[in-house]
Structures are given as structure tokens and as C-alpha cells.
């Protein structure tokens, strides 16, 4: 841990200063205290939330992982160690490519997918509707012909046939329009999917690069971390996989190898 700057904590009760500030005698919610450390006291409107404010340098990413040490905490050790290595200026061979992929992703615009549900719903059943009316037209035609051959008055049947024929044409027009609308929506959907596919590939590439960069950074700092872990008071006695250690011991060991600018909130029993 770096020899951090002096920290000023203002609480409802007053103001305290130092490299280490002991607040055990005050009734402060640790979560609020952590939030105050991570908040920029000069710009934030919340700076005076409940009269609690912490004046300290802006925390680095590693603080998100180990800045609030509590017994029940979960630490993603690899990610935290990579952030610790970064806090010390560590770099990975993947950094340039990673930056390029990230900016490509930031610039990528994905057209929103069109509403396909409405045109699908509209098309559904149009075939059956056309078929139904077509059968009715055929049946009426047959009856008109038979009526004429038998010399009966078919005027009423002819009216019915004309009506059915008109309905058939309407149904067919509706079906054609519905199909066209669906095709149009599907074309738009394809464009949107092309862009989504590009984004997915970039995201896969970013994840892969991030994994490799993390592995690189962890490897460089791992031994130091293992030494720090062995030195944690009341730490685990036997460790099979140091990267799988849980809880505050891992956080303290990561904190030891990191260059922490902002103060860490210790929310656990301390053995002096």
C-alpha cells in the first residue's frame, strides 16, 4: 500500500484527519462511508449527505474491489489483482488492441429491430380467409349455373356471387399487403441483425483480450500477492489456490500489493 495522503473525514460530530482515521466510536454506516470515499467531494451535491464527507484522492479501479474490507465480502481475486497491477502502472501486451476494439464498439450503431410481431400477426390467417371466400365463390358459381340451366330465377344468387367475388378480391389485396409489410420488416430486421452480429463479434473479441490481459497482469503480481496473503493476520493457514481465497484476507492481500490512493474502509475486527 502506498504511503497515502492525509485524509479528512467530516462527520456530524466533527472533523478528523490523519493517514488512519479511527471511527469506531461513531455510529456510521460503513456503506455510506465507502460511498463518501468514492464521491468527489468538490463536485458532488451529495457531499454533505448526512454531514458525512471524506476529503481524499480519487480512488482507482482497484478500490472498487478491495476498498471496503468486511468479513463477508466476496473478492474476484483475478480481476482485483489485475486492477492492482494497473494501479501500479502495469500494462498488458493486449492494451492497444483492446483500446481499438473498445473504440470500435463505442462507435458502432445498431439499428433498432423493427416491430415484427404486428406484421406477423397481420399475415397469420390471411391464407385461410382467402381460401374460405374462394370456396364460397366457387360454390355460388355452381349454384348460379345450375339455377340457370334449370330455368330458375338466379338474380338473388347472382347478387350473392358478386358480393362474394368482391370480398375475395378484398381478402387477396389484404393478404398481399400483409405479406409485403412483413417482408419489409424482415429486411429491416436483417440489417439490424447484421449490426448486432458485428457487435457480438467485437464483444467476444474484447472479452477475449480482457481475459488475456488480466492473465498477463495477474501473473506479474501473483508472487507478491501470495507473500502478502501469507502475512495477513488471522489469514488462512493453508492455501491450495491463492487465487480462490475468499473474503477479507484476499482483499487485504490485494490491497497490500496495490497502489491505493484513496483510503480503505476497514469494516471488520482488527488485531493490532
Amino acid at each position: 500500500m502506498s504511503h497515502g495522503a492525509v485524509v479528512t473525514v467530516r462527520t456530524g460530530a466533527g472533523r478528523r484527519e490523519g493517514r488512519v482515521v479511527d471511527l469506531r466510536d461513531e455510529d456510521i454506516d460503513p456503506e455510506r462511508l465507502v460511498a463518501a470515499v468514492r464521491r468527489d467531494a468538490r463536485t458532488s451535491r451529495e457531499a454533505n449527505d448526512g454531514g458525512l464527507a471524506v476529503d481524499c484522492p480519487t480512488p482507482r479501479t482497484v478500490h472498487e474491489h478491495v476498498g471496503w474490507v468486511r468479513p463477508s465480502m466476496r473478492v474476484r481475486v483475478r480481476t482485483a489483482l489485475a486492477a492492482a497491477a494497473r494501479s501500479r502502472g502495469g500494462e498488458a501486451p493486449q492494451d492497444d488492441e483492446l483500446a481499438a476494439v473498445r473504440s470500435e464498439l463505442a462507435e458502432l450503431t445498431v439499428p433498432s429491430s423493427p416491430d415484427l410481431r404486428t406484421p406477423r400477426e397481420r399475415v397469420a390467417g390471411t391464407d385461410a380467409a382467402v381460401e374460405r371466400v374462394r370456396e364460397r365463390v366457387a360454390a355460388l358459381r355452381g349454384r348460379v349455373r345450375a339455377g340457370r340451366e334449370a330455368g330458375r330465377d338466379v338474380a338473388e344468387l347472382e347478387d350473392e356471387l358478386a358480393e362474394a367475388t368482391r370480398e375475395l378480391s378484398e381478402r387477396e389485396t389484404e393478404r398481399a399487403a400483409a405479406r409485403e409489410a412483413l417482408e419489409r420488416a424482415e429486411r429491416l430486421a436483417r440489417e439490424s441483425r447484421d449490426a448486432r452480429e458485428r457487435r457480438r463479434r467485437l464483444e467476444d473479441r474484447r472479452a477475449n483480450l480482457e481475459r488475456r490481459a488480466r492473465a498477463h497482469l495477474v501473473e506479474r503480481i501473483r508472487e507478491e500477492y501470495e507473500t502478502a496473503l501469507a502475512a495477513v493476520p488471522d489469514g488462512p493457514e493453508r492455501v491450495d489456490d491463492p487465487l480462490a481465497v475468499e473474503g477479507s484476507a484476499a482483499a487485504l492481500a490485494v490491497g497490500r500489493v496495490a497502489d491505493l490512493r484513496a483510503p480503505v474502509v476497514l469494516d471488520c475486527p482488527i488485531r493490532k
Partner: protein
Amino acid sequence: MLLVVTYSRGARGTLRNVCRTHEEVVVRRFGRVALLAETEFAAFQALRLREKHGGDVQIERTEPFNEFEAVGASVREAAAAYEARDESALPYAAFAAGSDHPDPEQLRETEL
């Protein structure tokens, strides 16, 4: 069958979980794509996936391809003859040029 294609890491993850949990509906899975059985339960799973991931999920219904229904004999014969050609480096356009086989432009312009 139902063809489910995913277009994001999240949707791909859910598809993987669905396929693991309900092996019986999966006919085949290829990474971010799966072919599901033609049942209402498979349709339910596919729809659920689309509810969750919206435009990142595409569902299509496929049917087996029958070349005796979909295309004429000339296409089937051209495929067989081209695969039996002597010169392996010969492009199809050149192969078709001096023969009765359909030329590639004509094939491109004809829909199934």
C-alpha cells in the same frame, strides 16, 4: 424444425442454458445457433428466449430440403456432374460454358 439464432453474448448464454436444461428439445446446437424440435414446448422455449432478448433472437421455421420438389433435374444433374469433373481446379462457370448445364448467372436469378 425451429431454428434459433442469437445475436448477443447474453442471448447466446441463455440459449446455452436452455439447451442444457432441456436436452430433449434440442435437435442440434452450433455455438450461438440451435435447431429445436417441432413441438409446442420447443416453441415455448424459443419464444421465452425472444421475450428476454428481443431483437437479439431470431426464430425461423425450417423444413427438410427435397431437391426433387425444389429444383429441376438440370440443377441436380449439374451438381452431380460438376462434383465428378476431372479437373478439380475448374470453376463451375467454365465447366458449364461448353455444356448443357445451366450457367451460374441463370441459377442465381432463379428463385426456388
